């Protein structure tokens, strides 16, 4: 066998495990591999119902503008174009995907009404007999814009007098139970700064990142004999898509059926419900199957990326390397709409201050609206960029104290029974052991006292 197999070291935590298994822990062949290597795995776009119509979107050419008028004449004249949908065709043209778990307000039109808030925002959907005709039709839609000032920087967006991005929120930040951000308040961080031997404050930032799955976002909607719609989709969450789509269509949930489950990469990018509602409206008004699949450029620039973040971390540190206070101000760039970013921002707050036991923690995590493509879920969102900042910070603190960066981490690593900043008691911790094992792998010498540390005891602290 030549396949990659990382070994398992069963010595740490040996007392906590049992190994009396026949299938669990074994290398079992992937059940989907044969389908993949023969080309028989069915992805949504491999469905080809007869009479299929194609949908392509005309999208905003401006970052922030009022729509003075939309002229469909030239687009409708393209041979093969059968229908053009505007906001007036969408039964419930305003949504937010997290409404299903009680998060509001609805803040995003399915198709733009009187305003666009980001470059690439959908304005109208051209339905045609061929993909080429749909693209041609979409290219011939004429929109008359009145430009509005746009804001692209998270801190500028929160400043006095910034252009208002999203009227449904009324301010350029998402409100958490009336508060301007998601907060962590644990201990007394200002007192910690007063007692600290050192105070370090640094800034970190990232830019938006695309999930870039090889299969783009899309669906094929097929009207059924019983009047229902069958939706072949590459969604990451079938019922989440079904429920949101039904609310937008204002139809009973059982009118819809999602068939999926086999997706050509998601990485979080296929959790938003962006193609199914419009495709369903098109299928309903034409009573024919409709395909709406993103082109690669739409996937790259219009589908929601991982949010850019800007993070300020201020640490109170003692001479011996103990971090006694950590203050974090974090801005998450939500783009023009909320999507899943308010939840990602909460996730960012819950992750602070990283896997370390710090007795005083203060965090303000802002979910900020700007005139760019709405960000949403991506692999580890709320945590990935935070980890970049937190672990860069740990390295810098260690260097500032002339300390071994692994010893600094071992000294501050959370152990079983520690209280996290969000007031949950830590259990099943293993940060100490993964650090020790890494040191061993690369030949990084640790003193005996550090090698004897454990997640389950207070030894060496």
């Amino acid at each position, binding site marked *: 066998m030549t396949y990659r197999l990382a070994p398992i070291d069963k010595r740490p935590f040996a007392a906590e495990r049992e190994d009396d298994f026949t299938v669990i822990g074994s290398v079992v062949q992937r059940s989907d591999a044969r389908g993949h290597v023969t080309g028989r795995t069915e992805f949504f776009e491999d469905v080809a119902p007869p009479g299929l119509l194609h949908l392509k979107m005309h999208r905003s050419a401006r970052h922030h503008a009022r729509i003075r008028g939309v002229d469909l004449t030239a687009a409708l004249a393209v041979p093969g174009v059968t229908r053009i949908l505007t906001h007036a065709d969408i039964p419930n043209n305003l949504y937010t995907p997290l409404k299903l778990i009680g998060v509001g307000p609805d803040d995003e039109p399915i198709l733009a009404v009187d305003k666009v808030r980001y470059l690439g925002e959908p304005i109208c959907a051209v339905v045609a007999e061929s993909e080429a005709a749909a693209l041609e039709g979409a290219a011939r839609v004429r929109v008359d814009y009145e430009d509005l000032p746009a804001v692209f920087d998270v801190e500028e967006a929160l400043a006095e007098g910034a252009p208002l991005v999203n009227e449904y929120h009324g301010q350029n930040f998402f409100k958490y139970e009336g508060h301007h951000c998601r907060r962590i308040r644990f201990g007394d961080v200002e007192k910690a700064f007063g007692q600290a031997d050192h105070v370090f404050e640094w800034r970190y930032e990232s*830019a938006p990142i695309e999930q870039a799955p090889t299969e783009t976002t899309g669906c094929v909607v097929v009207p059924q004999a019983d009047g229902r719609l069958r939706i072949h989709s590459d969604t990451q969450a079938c019922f*989440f898509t079904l429920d949101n789509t039904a609310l937008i269509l204002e139809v009973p949930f059982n009118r819809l059926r999602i068939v999926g489950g086999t997706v050509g990469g998601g990485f979080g990018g296929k959790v938003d419900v962006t193609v199914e509602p419009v495709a369903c409206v098109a299928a309903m008004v034409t009573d024919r199957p409709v395909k709406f699949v993103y082109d690669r450029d739409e996937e790259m620039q219009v589908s929601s990326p991982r949010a850019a973040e800007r993070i300020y971390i201020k640490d109170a540190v003692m001479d011996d390397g103990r971090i006694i206070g950590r203050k974090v101000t974090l801005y998450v760039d939500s783009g023009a709409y909320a999507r899943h970013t308010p939840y990602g921002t909460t996730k960012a707050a819950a992750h602070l201050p990283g896997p370390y036991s710090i007795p005083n923690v203060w965090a303000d995590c802002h979910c900020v609206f700007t005139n760019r493509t709405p960000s949403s879920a991506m692999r580890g969102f709320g*945590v990935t960029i935070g980890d970049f900042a937190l672990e*860069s910070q740990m390295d810098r603190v260690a260097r500032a104290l002339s300390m071994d960066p692994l010893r600094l981490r071992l000294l501050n690593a959370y152990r079983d029974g520690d209280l996290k900043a969000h007031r949950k008691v830590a259990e099943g911790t293993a940060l100490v052991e993964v650090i020790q*094992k890494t040191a061993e792998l690369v030949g990084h010498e640790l003193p005996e006292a550090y090698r004897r540390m454990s997640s389950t005891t207070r030894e060496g602290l």
Partner: protein
Amino acid sequence: MAKLRGRGYASVNYPTGMNLGGDPSQALIHSTTTGTFVITLSSVDLGQGIKTIAAQCAAETLGLPIENVLVDTADTDTGPHCMGTFASRGTHRVGNAVIMAAAEARGVMLEVAAEELEVDAADLETDGTGVIKLKGSDEKSIHITDLALAAHFKHGRTISGRGIFLKEPSTPVPETGEMDPDSCQAHACTAAVVEVDDETGVIEVLELYNVYEIGRALNPAMATQQVEGGAWMGLSHALFETTEPYYPRRDHGPRDFAEYLMPGPADLPAQHSLFLERPAGNGPYGAKGIGEMTANAPIPAIANAVFDACGVRLTAMPFTPERVLRGLDALRQDA
């Protein structure tokens, strides 16, 4: 002009299913007349392998070979509810639901076997070969194929089960952030070895050491796929990826794979990976989620390795040659 080598570390934890709870997933399981068990789900496989993992969990719980298990997903007409594939929740939530469903089905299976063999169900055992037998006896046994036929045509019993996993919803306290957001935490430490070309600003990642504590590796080969594929994505995030190269300025944006840069097969570091396992009490056979976290630790490990190599502290992602060169220029000016 030189290539400067450095090593950097990052250690992280990652929440399994950080949804603040309230995110259920269900599983149904039933035996066909010949003893194939069909797991019905509406869960989505993005390539992480939930179809395979669900089958392994069911086979282990039933005490049957994996060849006796099929997974049917995802059709909302037939599959019970699943919240979705995100938040590293799939293995944890769906695995637990499948185990619960399979345990119920196993109970019926043993009851019917007890009737067939005229023994007490509590005295029966399975060994993963497809046989249900009396403990300590090779005389009294029945194969699942015969048992399933008998259950259906003779006893009128459905060998089936229902499972659900729900973590209670938690609402954060707005003043303090007090909350119970997740189910467990997986852990990782990455060491990155890099070479920085001080003339071009190009960073080459030579080696990545990944140590992961993931509760239990239900399928070690697939867990390795996640760790090493995710490390590649972390490397890609660190060095190349963004849809807005001049963020927050919005005037440039890559539109295809020719412009949206990612490391290719010629740009791969050597990866050395190792698993530790500290089974989670609430995880399926102790497993924690690792789908998302595998991209995380490499990013700061690379940033810290670059500093170790050349003294440039990169604070903005991605770590482009331009940013490295500007950092080197600043160091020269300070010197």
